[in-house]
C-alpha cells in the first residue's frame, strides 16, 4: 500500500515490546493516520515470547495481519530467527545488540544494531531500552514526529508512572543520537 508502514516488534514479555508498538500507534493516530496494533503473546506474564504488528497508513487498513514487514524491531534471538527473513528487501531491521547473539546476515536490507540495554542501564532504568530503540527507529524511519511520541507516551503510561516521562524523553533522544551516529558511520 502507498505510504503505509508495516512494522513488527518482537522480543520477550516484559521488555516493553507491546507498549513500544502502542506508543507508535498512538503517536500516528495523533497525526490523523489510520493505525492498527495487533498483539500476540504467550500465556506467561513475563518471559514468554511477545510480538506486535503495527500498521500506520494514510488509507483505511483492511487486514491487521501481514507476513512481510517494512521494518522489524527485534529484542531477542528467537525473534531474530523468526523475523529476519520477513523484512521486505530494502526494509529496516533494527535490533538490541546484547540480546541477539547471532547477528543477521542479509545484505539486501538496512541493518542497525543498537546497544539499547547498555544505554538504559546507564540511565539506571533498564525499562527505557524500548524507548531508546524507538528513537533509533525514528532516526531511520521518521514516520511520526518525536513531539507526538511524547504526547502518546502520556496516554500509554499509567498516570502513576508520569514522573518517568522526562526519563523516557531522554531515552528517546539517546536513541535518536545512536541511530544517527551509526548512519553517519555507515555513510563514511
Amino acid at each position, binding site marked *: 500500500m502507498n505510504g503505509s508502514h508495516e512494522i513488527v516488534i518482537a522480543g520477550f514479555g516484559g521488555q516493553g515490546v507491546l507498549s513500544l508498538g502502542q506508543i507508535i*500507534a498512538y503517536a500516528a493516530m495523533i497525526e490523523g493516520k489510520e493505525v*492498527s*496494533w*495487533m498483539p500476540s503473546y*504467550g500465556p506467561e506474564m513475563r518471559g514468554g515470547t511477545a510480538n506486535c504488528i503495527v500498521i500506520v497508513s494514510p488509507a483505511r487498513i*483492511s487486514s*491487521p495481519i501481514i*507476513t512481510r514487514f517494512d521494518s522489524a524491531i527485534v529484542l531477542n534471538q528467537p525473534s531474530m530467527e523468526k523475523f529476519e527473513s520477513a523484512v521486505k528487501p530494502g526494509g529496516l531491521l533494527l535490533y538490541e545488540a546484547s540480546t541477539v547473539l547471532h547477528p543477521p546476515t542479509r545484505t539486501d536490507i538496512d541493518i542497525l544494531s543498537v546497544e539499547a540495554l547498555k544505554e538504559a542501564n546507564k540511565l539506571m532504568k533498564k525499562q527505557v531500552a524500548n524507548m531508546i530503540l524507538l528513537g533509533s527507529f525514528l532516526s531511520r524511519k521518521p514516520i511520526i514526529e518525536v513531539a507526538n511520541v511524547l504526547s502518546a507516551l502520556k496516554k500509554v503510561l499509567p498516570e502513576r508512572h508520569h514522573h518517568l516521562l522526562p526519563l523516557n524523553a531522554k531515552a528517546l533522544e539517546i536513541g535518536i543520537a545512536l541511530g544517527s551516529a551509526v548512519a553517519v558511520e555507515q555513510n563514511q
Partner: protein
Amino acid sequence: MIVEGAVQAGCKFFAGYPITPATGIFKGMVDMLPGRGGLALSAPDEISAIAYAIGASLRGLKAMTATSGPGWALMTESVQFALMTETPLVIALVQRLGPSTGGATQGAQGDVLLAEYCTSGGYTIPVLCPATAMECYSLAILAFTWAEVYRTPVVLLTDKEIAMTSERIDDHALCPMTAQDRPTAKAGSAAYAFEFPQEIPGFRPVGGYEKVTVTGSAHDKQGRLQKNSPETVQVLRHLEEKIRWREQDFSVVESDLQAGAETLVVSYGVTSRAALQAVVRARAEGTAVSFLAIKSLFPVPKKAIVKALAGIRTVIVPEENLTGLYRSVLSSLFHGADVRGVNKVGSMITPGEILEAVKEVQ
C-alpha cells in the same frame, strides 16, 4: 468497542468471570458501567455470571455477560434457559484456540457451531460476528436490539484478534442510538401470550405488580410447567418460529460483487479482512472475483448469499478452523458450485494464502 457499544445500547447490567481473551470486556464494563447508571458484577464463576445476567434481564434490565470457549461450555445450560424463558440477553463470546482450555492467547474461529447449536433441539440463536473495532460497536448495539425485540439470547461472536487489536476509529461516525426496548405485556394478559406462533409476547418483569412464572421446563403461555399439552407444544414451536419467520430481518452482510466474476470469496470475522485484502490484490492483478463478508452468521442470510452466487462457479470459504465449520453450514446453498476451504488452526490466515487459493481456481 464492545463495551462502548453495550453501554450506548443501554446495557444496565453486566456480570462476568475473567477469562482471556474476553477479560477486556469484563474490565471495561466494571470500569464504565457504574458511572453510566448500571451495575457490573464479578461473579464467582461463569455459570453464576450468566445466571446473574438472566436474573437482571428478568427484572427488566438490558443485560450482558462475556466469556471465551471454556466459559461458554459452562454457560450453555443457562443460554438454553434464557431461550426457553424468552429472556433477552447478549453474550459476547470471544473465541480462542480450542478444544478444552486450548490456547488462551491464540485466536481461532472454532466456536461458530458451538455458539449456534448449543441448544437441545437446535433452536436458532442469532449470532453476530464483527470484523472491525467499528463493527464491535455497531453490532453490539444491534445485538441488544435483537435480544430485546425478539426476546432471545444473542451471541456476539468475536475472537482474540478482534477483541485485543487496537485500531483508529472515527468517533463522529459512531451510531448515537440506543438499542430498542422489549415489547411490554398488556395488563391481565398471560406472561407468554401469543396468538400466532411467530408473535413476540409482551414482557412482564419479575417482581412487578402481576405474577410471573419462569421455568426452563416445557410450559404453557402462563409459564406453568406442563407435559405434552397442545399449548406446550405450541410454545416450543413458537420459540423457533418467532425467529425463523423473520429470518430476513437478521441479514447483515457486506458484499462487493464484481460483474463477470466466477469466483466468490465468502468469509467472516477477522478472516474476512484478510480475504478482502486478497480480493483487492487479485483484482489488481486482473482477476475478477466477488467478495461477501457475513456479519450475521445465524440465522444464515440466505437471500444475500444466493444473490452473490449468480454466475459463480467456485466458492472459497476461508476460516480459522480445521474442518470448515461455517462452510459446512453454507454448502447446501452452494449447490452446483465447486466449494473450497482455506483452513488453518494455531495462527491467522494471511491475505497471501487466500490469494493463492483464488489464483489456483484460474
